[in-house]
């Protein structure tokens, strides 16, 4: 992100700004510029949208991390006074909501947006403008949620009901601030974003693959992201129903969760966890996909059991729907339900185990290179296994009843979300950073980052198992001395700050490596000697991705263009990456034009949200944004789905083909013809 911002400094005084100044009435006429900060608001390029997702998610990650640190300061010693009970409730709720909905999901969306089209050899996603809409709706919803922390007082109006917001605890009586309203509306908004994005990416995977790229030649990452999109597609509406009921119950006194009127508060728990368990796989499958790309590359072996990898992912996708009530064993479901869900929960460990075994088998006998992405990937395999195993202990209902709402649960799911997901996403950052930004992240800082994070997470979440088994409840804002909680709580807090140092190292690494990159040789298209199509184009990729559609003949197409086997079955190299890769200097590719309308439509939704909470008049304003946006959208030339496929072989205007591999390359395709 940083790169392009800097790169555009000299270029911003270009036509786009001038044009809008001269024509105030046509302020929203179709933008044409692909440079300058403004172009980021109107971009429909899947790569830029991917970067926007990643950047926004990183900002939210820092916010959520600060909330975690605040909690650990509070709990480091008995009878802490750093946060009041009321604030603490809001902080842990916002930490959970932020990390799950505003960090893990959009970071996965960043990888999905950036990499799916590249890995299947497509020009862009199926609906570029809808893609932009998804991002802006997500950002609007995220900012809406975060704004609850300061609108109406500093930390007095944020949701305080926990991230799963059980009813009637989240009702007006027990949570009288507007926080839960923010929660209900904000998550509906981000849900819309996820749903649109899911539809878009599913269509992309099913319909836009390049020649010969059959479904079973798609890289495992794309497969896992596709399964994730299906889970989102079917899970988001379920939580939307729940949030809808919650919103009506709070704003308009609907009786959905009012026990006195005969309602069943457990309805919320069911709706939440029918969504919530697939959500776990929505979060973790992208990380699994990333690991499945990183490990083969640095083991110098193809992925072991590709079809097992794919089918176990699909199996997880299906089975993820049959285990939700294991989150509710303590709620009195009755013995038959508990037994059934207990069994299904044990079964779902099988496909996950298949994945772990396949990763190990991929590494077995490989030429391993332990650089930063590989280290993070191995961390996923090991740490996620710990989290998975402690998860299986919850499948046993009797044990689960004792563990429910203790720190043991917190330990378990943090080994999954931090050990599995965050480590996986960091592996992805280090792995694809050179592809996206044209420079490698520094290895030394990367390894420091890795060790700080891996030691930090084990210090933080390891002792939580012990605290939980000792009986310390989660979500209590303080504890008294003398129960044996002091030592481990102090260790946990130290661990949390170690993780924070690790994340800080990562951020420093971004800027440090970027500065250093100028002195280093260009990374070239394929810095890691990898296997899939995205490495066959320059780094960063040109706006149009591929000069020519690639004909795919098998799995790991790019690798097979570089390597073959001799008569003894030994691997021989017969081409370098540079010889195989495309140059990216084509300039006559027909690309979808940028558009203002996605951001206009998206702006309306949070305004409607504020309107529902504070004054219905604001809903009218927000509604105007949405209607105007949709109207303008419909007036714009329809997004011809063929436009992204169709190479019009018009005589190319020889624009600047500056092939400097510097970060500036991203904006070198300014002469690219655009969709009228």
């Amino acid at each position: 992100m940083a790169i392009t911002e800097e790169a555009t400094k000299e270029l911003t005084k270009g036509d786009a700004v001038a044009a809008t100044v001269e024509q105030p009435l046509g302020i929203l006429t179709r933008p044409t510029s692909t440079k300058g900060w403004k172009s980021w608001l109107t971009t429909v390029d899947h790569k830029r949208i991917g970067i926007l997702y990643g950047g926004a998610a990183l900002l939210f990650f820092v916010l959520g991390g600060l909330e975690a640190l605040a909690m650990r300061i509070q709990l480091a010693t008995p009878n802490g006074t750093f946060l009041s009970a009321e604030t603490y409730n809001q902080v842990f709720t916002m930490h959970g909501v932020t990390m799950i909905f505003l960090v893990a999901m959009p970071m996965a969306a960043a990888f999905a947006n950036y990499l799916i089209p590249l890995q299947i050899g497509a020009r862009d996603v199926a609906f570029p403008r809808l893609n932009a809409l998804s991002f802006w709706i997500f950002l609007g919803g995220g900012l809406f949620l975060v704004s609850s922390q300061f609108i109406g007082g500093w930390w007095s109006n944020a949701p305080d009901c926990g991230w799963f917001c059980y009813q009637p605890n989240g009702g007006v009586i027990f949570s009288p601030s507007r926080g839960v309203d923010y929660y209900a509306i904000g998550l509906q908004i981000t849900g819309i974003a996820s749903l649109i994005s899911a539809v878009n990416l599913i269509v992309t995977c099913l319909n836009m693959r390049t020649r010969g790229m059959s479904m079973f030649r798609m890289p495992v990452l794309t497969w896992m992201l596709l399964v994730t999109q299906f889970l989102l597609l079917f899970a988001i509406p379920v939580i939307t129903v729940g949030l809808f009921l919650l919103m009506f119950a709070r704003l308009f006194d609907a009786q959905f969760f009012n026990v006195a009127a005969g309602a069943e508060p457990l309805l919320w728990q069911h709706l939440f966890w029918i969504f919530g368990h697939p959500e776990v796989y929505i979060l973790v499958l992208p990380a699994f996909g990333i690991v499945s790309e990183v490990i083969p590359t640095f083991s110098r072996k193809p992925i072991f059991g590709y079809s097992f990898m794919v089918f176990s992912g699909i199996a997880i996708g299906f089975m993820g729907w049959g285990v939700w009530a294991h989150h509710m064993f303590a709620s009195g479901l009755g013995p038959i339900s508990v037994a059934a869900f207990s069994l299904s929960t044990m079964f779902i460990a099988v496909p996950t185990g298949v994945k772990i075994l396949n990763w190990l088998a991929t590494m077995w006998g490989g030429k391993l290179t332990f650089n930063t992405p590989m280290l993070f990937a191995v961390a996923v395999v090991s740490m996620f296994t710990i989290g998975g195993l402690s998860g299986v202990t919850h499948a046993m209902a009797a044990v689960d009843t004792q563990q429910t709402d203790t720190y043991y649960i917190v330990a378990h799911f943090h080994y999954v979300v931090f050990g599995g997901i965050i480590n996986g996403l960091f592996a992805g950052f280090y792995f694809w950073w050179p592809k996206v930004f044209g420079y490698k992240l520094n290895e030394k800082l990367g390894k420091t980052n890795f060790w700080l994070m891996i030691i930090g997470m084990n210090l933080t979440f390891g002792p939580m198992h012990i605290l939980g088994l000792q009986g310390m409840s989660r979500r209590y804002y303080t504890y008294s001395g003398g129960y044996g909680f002091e030592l481990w709580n102090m260790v946990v807090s130290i661990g949390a700050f170690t993780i924070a140092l690790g994340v800080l190292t990562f951020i420093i690494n971004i800027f440090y490596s970027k500065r250093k990159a100028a002195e280093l040789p260009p990374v070239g298209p394929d810095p890691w000697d990898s296997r899939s199509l995205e490495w066959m184009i320059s780094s960063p990729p040109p706006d149009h991705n591929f000069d020519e559609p690639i004909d795919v003949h098998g799995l790991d197409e790019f690798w097979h263009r570089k390597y073959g086997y001799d008569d003894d079955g030994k691997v021989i190299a017969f081409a370098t990456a540079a010889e195989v890769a495309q140059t990216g200097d084509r300039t006559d590719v027909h690309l979808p034009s940028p558009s203002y309308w996605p951001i206009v439509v998206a702006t309306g939704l949070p305004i409607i949200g504020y309107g529902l909470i504070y004054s219905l008049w604001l809903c009218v304003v927000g509604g105007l944004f949405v209607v105007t946006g949709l109207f303008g959208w419909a007036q714009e030339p329809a997004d011809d789905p063929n436009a992204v496929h169709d190479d019009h072989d018009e005589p190319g205007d020889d624009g600047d083909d500056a092939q400097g591999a510097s970060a500036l390359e991203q904006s070198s395709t300014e002469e690219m013809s655009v969709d009228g």
Partner: protein
Amino acid sequence: MAEAALDAHEHPETNTGMSNSKLALWVFLGSECLLFGGLISTYLLYRNETNGGPTASDVFEIPFTSVSSFVLLLSSLTMVLALSALRRGDETRNRIWLLTTAMLGAVFVGGQVYEFTAFLREGLGFTTSPFSSAFYTLTGFHGVHVSVGIVMLMSLVVVSLKGDLSKERAETVELIGLYWHFVDVVWIFIFTVVYLTV
């Protein structure tokens, strides 16, 4: 199969041979099933939780709702006739049928508004009971879907009047038609499960 089709084409349009928009609409409708499913389940769970207020059999007026159901069913027929006309290149008939569909939809929504006010007068407020909240939310949500459909149909009529809705753009009509039929299908569910099983 899709692969084979792919190889045969010089410039493959899409892998499945179907347009992106149509595929997207079906994917979206798959998702909608879970949305309406959740609201219907909520209603089913609460259908007897009347909290001392009117019950379903107290207020429901089956003959009236039956007429509404027939109207919505009829609108599905006029919708396919609109598409059929456009595919023949008959833009005038297409317009007439689109307008008829929108009108029938409006009659349905009007009927629902009338029904709601009647129920209100009988003491079934939105906040009366879990039953009433669930009922109004489910049927209201469906009504909103119908209304959105009406807006889209009327936009099509306007586009058609401007002369921009030719045979080549029949797919737009087809997609809005699919949405319309889906809303009709949901009503088939609601009419049976909510009204007739009382």
